[in-house]
């Protein structure tokens, strides 16, 4: 399967022109870093959510009940 190229829509305020161009190597690298960071943050969030659920299960509380206790 051919991977589609990442593209950027760029509007140059000086020329007033909008172009769609392929992302540069540096931009692609940054996107990969951003994606990796997002995945890491999501994994951390998911882990916290799982921990939270374990605790709630141990206490026998629903998420809504826990929210009421913390509100």
């Amino acid at each position, binding site marked *: 399967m051919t991977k589609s190229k*990442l*593209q*950027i*829509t*760029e*509007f*140059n*305020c*000086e*020329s007033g022109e*909008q172009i*769609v161009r392929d*992302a540069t190597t540096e931009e692609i690298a*940054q*996107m990969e*870093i*951003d*994606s990796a*960071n*997002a*995945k890491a*943050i*999501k994994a951390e*969030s998911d882990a916290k959510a799982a921990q939270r659920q374990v605790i709630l299960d141990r206490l026998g509380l629903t998420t809504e009940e826990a*929210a009421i206790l913390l509100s």
Partner: protein
Amino acid sequence: MSNPTSNFGWQMPEPTDLVTDLPADFEVFGQAVDTDFADLNGGTTGQLLSKTSATDLDFTWVTPNAGDITGVTAGTGISGGGTSGDVTVTNSMATAFTTSGDLIQATGSGTFARLGTGTNGQYLTTNGTTNSWGSISAGGMTVLASGSITNTTLSITSIDQTYTNLFLYLNMTSGGAGAYGVDIRLNANSNSIYSNCRLALVNGSAPVAASSLESAFRVQSDFFAAASSFQLTMNIYQYTNTDPRKIVDYNSIGLDQSYSAPLVTNATGQFANTSAITSIQTVGSLTGSYILYGVK
């Protein structure tokens, strides 16, 4: 010649009168004249003849009152005047008006000058001393960039540096492809210099209430889900300032892909960098329209 005389009705001798009657006739005539002009008798030096009644030849010698006015001097705002004869005075301020719309303004104590009307749309302004017509410099918001994008990231570059603030509006029909949401970067700077305090809500509950230093202003990425649509408004204040504390506030609302939960972000942030902001980037692919305004 009429007889009696046409104006005064004095009886003169008739052509058929006997010569011997002439002395008596002249006596009648003379006496009539004498009687009618009796009022002209008398008087003294400087007196004037004044009508006593509307009756013909009814006069009285009168002494005129001494005149109070010996001259008319044109004061401030008045021209003309004089000390004899007919005197004309003119309101100089009135004659300074020459054209419809003219105004008169003081040029000093007791002096004035015409100020012709301005051109269409001008307003009366002042430099603190003198009034003049001036145009109001265009304020408000000016579109610096606008357009539509389809499933790409957005980069707005070469931003005009002559405005005070920037206002970014995104109206996206989808945002955040895959599991990644949408963030905003300035000057394509990916360093952890984006300080922001934000509250991100999903359907009223708060998955994130964060105050952190990150590599972008987080708009929708807290939700770890692509939005089916979202709108963003972002103010970037004093964006040309080289002070390393540029304040930003932004609000966004979207819907998750099941169209069941509103995704809301309210945040105040700071871009901790001395560079003036010349470009804005989205992090995450978007589809929809954008407008960037320069705000005076």
